[in-house]
């Protein structure tokens, strides 16, 4: 299992009228080839910004990105265009991620045209047909426009566009959260099949733990720009360590009447990511917070093999 992507101390700050907004603050992780890293967290915690910064859709503030053994932290336009072939993105909103003035075949063929992948229009045609079949889109939609399709089909178009250049790595930014639950299942299954067939590597962003449970190998939990917990999927669900992760897990409704489970309610507003105070970002809402939590940020430490957590009290809480 070789590492495809390694991100070290990535930071992305936005300048806002109120000060520096720390959207992604010192995040590190790595992903193996063919695996999926699920990124979970409330909306506004910087998940999309993280995904976009990694694939150079947003310029980073600082940090290092190593892709396929190569340092791509700083790239020029030429190198970036080359990189785009290998790194793609599937977007959250299937209604705004497709150009309403382009037909489905135009949308899917655009990346092929830009990179001159096909020698003639016949070859282009057959590539588009093959892509539409791969994602399960009926060919009669070739000349349709996005507004004529339902959400699930549009998302399939978005997936076909991302696959067109045969990338190695895809950032999936909440690709199913705008869809009905029954359609979510179809799209998730499609993505898993594609991953198996093509050996794709995913970052799968979502605010919904039940979705990542379905698709990820590893899960990292974000809170206000920080990665607070990172672990293999099973370990995280069986043995969550960070108070925030516990609260998230307790919010999943359970289909069992025998087990009473305490729901941990998160009190208070999410604090502002603009010029954040020192200390643990979660302290304002954490029922276990102590004085030291407000003084310096807890480091992300390995608590069990492969299981990292950034909380001063995680060990003691796990035992007690």
């Amino acid at each position, binding site marked *: 299992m070789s590492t495809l992507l390694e991100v070290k101390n990535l930071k992305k700050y936005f300048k806002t009228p109120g000060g520096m907004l720390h959207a992604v603050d010192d995040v590190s992780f790595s992903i193996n080839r063919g695996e999926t890293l699920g990124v979970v967290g409330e909306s506004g915690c910087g998940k999309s910004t993280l995904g*976009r910064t990694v*694939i150079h*859709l947003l310029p980073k503030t600082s940090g290092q990105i190593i892709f396929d053994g190569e340092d791509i932290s700083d790239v020029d336009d030429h190198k970036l*265009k080359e990189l*785009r*072939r290998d790194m793609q*993105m599937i*977007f*959250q*909103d299937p209604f*705004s*991620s*497709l*150009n*309403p*003035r*382009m037909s489905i075949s135009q949308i899917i063929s*655009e*990346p092929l045209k*830009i*990179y001159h992948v096909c020698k003639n229009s016949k070859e282009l045609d057959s590539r588009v047909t093959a892509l539409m079949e791969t*994602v*399960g*889109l*009926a060919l*009669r*939609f070739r*000349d*349709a*426009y996005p507004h*004529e399709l339902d959400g*699930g089909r549009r998302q399939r178009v*978005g997936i076909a*566009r*991302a696959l*067109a*250049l045969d990338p190695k790595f895809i950032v999936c930014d909440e690709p199913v959260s705008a869809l009905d*639950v*029954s359609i*979510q*299942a*179809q799209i998730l*299954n*499609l993505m898993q*099949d594609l991953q198996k067939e093509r050996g794709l590597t995913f970052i799968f962003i979502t605010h919904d733990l*039940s*979705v990542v*449970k*379905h698709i990820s190998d590893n899960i990292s939990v974000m809170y206000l720009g920080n990665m607070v917990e990172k672990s293999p999927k*099973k370990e995280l*669900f*069986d043995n969550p360590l960070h108070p925030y992760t516990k609260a998230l*897990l307790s919010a*999943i*409704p*359970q*289909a*069992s009447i025998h*087990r009473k*489970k305490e729901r941990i309610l998160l009190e208070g507003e999410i604090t502002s990511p603009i010029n954040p105070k020192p200390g643990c970002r979660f302290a304002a809402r954490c029922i276990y917070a102590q004085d030291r939590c407000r003084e310096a940020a807890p480091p992300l430490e390995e608590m069990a093999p492969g299981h990292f957590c950034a909380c001063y009290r995680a060990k003691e809480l796990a035992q007690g």
Partner: protein
Amino acid sequence: MNNTVSFKEYILKTGTASVQEYSAENDNYVRKSQLREIWGRFCKNKIALLGLICLLLLVAMALFADVIAPEGYDNQDLYNKFALPSAEHWFGTDNVGRDIFDRVVHGSRISLTVGMISVSIAAVVGILLGSIAGYYGGRTDNIIMRILDVFMSVPGILLSLSIAAALGPGLFNLMIAVGIGSVPGYARIVRASILSVKEQEYIEAAHCIGCSNARIIFRHVLPNCLAPIIVQATLGVASAILVASSMSFLGLGLEPPIPEWGAMLSVGRPYIRDYWHLVAFPGIAIMITVFSLNVFGDGLRDALDPRLKQ
């Protein structure tokens, strides 16, 4: 916690409708072209349809002016000045005995040409400036928009008048003067719609698949800003015709004997108390043209953007 399964997870796990099943040809999907939809919505607005018919007639009149009025527009008949409308001279004759009907017919060529070309000049320059300002934002945006603000602080007609005065009379200069006066309007509209289109995810998707900036502007941004530009241009032709006529009326546009409608008003003005027909017919011609363009433009706006109507 791990041996229970949430309801949603259950659906996610078992909802394994296969890919092929999903795309089965079992729904009745009817392909309808976008143009046909737009046309259907347009036809619901009867006044706009009337405007379109008037416009088509006007264009036909301009194209076939030589057939409709084969005598041309400059035949003086000094024995027959100020003749009232009659079977021979439908609209009467003017102060040097020229047939007013012939002149109005030939004048449609001038007015439509001036309207369309000055609007094209304004639209091309305005779209270019507005796209650059909206797409690149920041300082570029600031510089362009502040310069245009200066232009906009001068009333449009005054601006056109000063430019015309500087350039001198003549058809081409008139078109430039009228065109430059309305550049800021286009630039603003284009900039505003680009700012809203730029936020859409499909622009980000375009970056992601390696589109160049030029490709993004011309393939993704501008086509989605087209509706407001088309509407502004249609309404712009009307106001350009009005401005051109006003300038000719004031003596800064076209000079006699060119049958520009505004210039004809100017010629007839001294005789307005005794001979109404010298100003009435060119006046009505301007009115009908401007009215049809305006109602057509309004109808087009509603047809292109159905959300506006609701």
